[in-house]
């Protein structure tokens, strides 16, 4: 009797496991074929000299040592740091500013929200072409500045101005960040504001001591995804530099638009698969380090509510 019941239960368990496996199978197969295998493969290749169609030759840490001595890599990392340290704060600030101004329902806010959101729908290659046209010599921006008697910089000839152009483009496309901030702002309980108002807090104090701490989980999230995004930046920088000098992945002018992903793609296109793999793995590790460092310092500047938020 009991053994029969146990057998029946075992059968049911087996059925259940099979069902779960069946439900998961698309992801399981995809994970093995399109994620796990490629990652392991590129890890192996990163320790070899490898060209497609030829066997890999083991060189140990050779590629990684070359990476350390690579001046262009340093340049790409500097460009990335520029975009992260200057571009990202500007984007987050504008997104938070707009979200703060528009979070509460007022007449006309719907139209504003739409206007600020829609640019983020424009694909980076299209906004790249658009901003290349807007900022070019004799373009609309130069024309507008001319009305005020200001001489426009040579955005795409002067290496000092190419990254500000990229940052302007990025700031135009903050719609997603704005939406996430808005959702965070709406979730702040009204009672908190009322409490500090009783203490006589002004507008700034309310923002500083209620709004900022309460949306810090959202800020954390947007900062983290923003940093990872900057590390992978490619499309707009590619469109700009192709406009300056077509057919090359050197980030012209003077490497000012060279991003990490662009340099990696160049080594890949040149058939240096081992080196490109090493670069990819360094990028992966950098992403991990950024994430872990941010997670580790999270408690210091992210306010956590009792329900654990975000």
């Amino acid at each position, binding site marked *: 009797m009991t053994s029969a019941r146990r057998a029946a239960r075992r059968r049911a368990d087996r059925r259940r496991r099979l069902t779960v496996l069946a439900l998961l199978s698309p992801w399981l197969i995809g994970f093995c074929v399109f994620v796990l295998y490629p990652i392991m493969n590129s890890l192996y290749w990163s320790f070899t000299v490898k060209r497609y169609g030829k066997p890999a030759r083991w060189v140990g840490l050779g590629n990684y040592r070359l990476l350390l001595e690579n001046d262009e890599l340093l340049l790409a990392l500097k460009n990335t740091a520029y975009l992260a340290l200057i571009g990202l704060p500007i984007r987050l600030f504008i997104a938070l500013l707009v979200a703060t*101004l528009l979070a509460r329902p007022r007449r006309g806010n719907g139209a504003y929200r739409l206007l600020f959101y829609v640019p983020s729908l424009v*694909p980076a290659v299209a906004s790249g072409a658009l901003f290349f046209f807007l900022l*070019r010599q004799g373009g609309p921006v130069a024309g507008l500045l001319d009305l005020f008697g200001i001489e426009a910089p040579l955005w795409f000839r002067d290496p000092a101005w190419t990254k500000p152009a990229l940052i302007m483009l990025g700031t135009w496309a903050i719609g997603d960040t704005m939406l996430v901030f808005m959702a965070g702002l709406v979730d702040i309980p009204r009672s908190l504001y009322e409490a500090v108002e009783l203490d006589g807090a002004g507008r700034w104090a309310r923002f500083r001591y209620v709004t900022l701490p309460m949306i810090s989980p959202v800020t954390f999230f947007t900062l983290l995804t923003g940093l990872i995004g900057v590390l992978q930046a490619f499309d707009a920088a590619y*469109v700009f530099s192709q406009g300056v000098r077509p057919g090359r992945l050197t980030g012209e002018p003077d490497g000012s638009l060279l991003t990490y992903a662009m340099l990696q793609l160049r080594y890949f296109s040149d058939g240096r698969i081992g080196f490109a793999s090493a670069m990819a793995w360094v990028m992966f590790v950098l992403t991990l380090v950024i994430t872990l460092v941010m997670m580790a310092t999270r408690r210091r500047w992210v306010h956590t509510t009792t329900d654990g938020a975000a």
Partner: protein
Amino acid sequence: MSTVLVATEQPARRTAPVGASRSRRLLFLIGRHAVLVALALMFALPFLFMLLQSVMPITQAKTTALWPDRFEWGNYREVFDRVPLATYFLNTLKVCVLATIGTVVSCVPVAYAFSHVRWRGRTAVFVLVLATMMLPYQVLFVSQYQIFTELGWINSILPLTVPAFFADAFSIFLLRQFFLTLPTEVMDAARIDGASELGVLARVVVPLAKPGIMAVAIFQFLFSWSDFFGPNLYLDSDDSLTLAVGLVRLNTALVKTGESNLTMAAAVLFVLPILAVFFFAQKVFIEGVTLTGTKG
């Protein structure tokens, strides 16, 4: 047009402050509007210039003119003569439709297994799924490219569509978030009535989660439409390109001739379908963005 982008629940307007603070309040209101109007102008002008440039006659397009002398609608036809835009359009549509179908078909069961089926190790495996969301494409494509080359898939849409049928982490995550908001009682009731897990999924979860599934479909469609890196990697022959790659090549070629009016006309044609999809499904779309925190 004036649909509110984020659903908000707000108590009644706060009572107006009294006395001296009224003038400060007025000052703030004026400041708020000044900032908003200035920013709004900066966000709207690029669109305006794009539209104006797209209908500028070529003689004027090469000058600093801001407003076209006459509206040259023929620019839009001219783009079709310069590049096989109809072919690009068709290629892009094929990629988008197939990738969207693949994503929905593959991610719905996976997300269900991660939300409403109980099994040992579920949390650990889900953390693994989340971790793969962080993977840069760079560590994957170097080896994927070799696989696709050996399969003879270069210059076809297969590298851009087949992987979509094997569930990506972002869509699984988004769908799971939606599924978790569904009432478990209905599912348990179906199970007590003898429904299998697949039956519960097909007859209870999918009908209830239609908005979530729509959001995932729209995200995938827009991602495939906008994607440049992948198509640029796998497509090279002129008749295989998607719009994104075609636009970049057109832009690069026309920078030299100064025909930015044609580039802008092509850009308008490329962006319009996206805006159409967005306006068509705004509510579902916004819900998705705020639920996951990002468009991915």
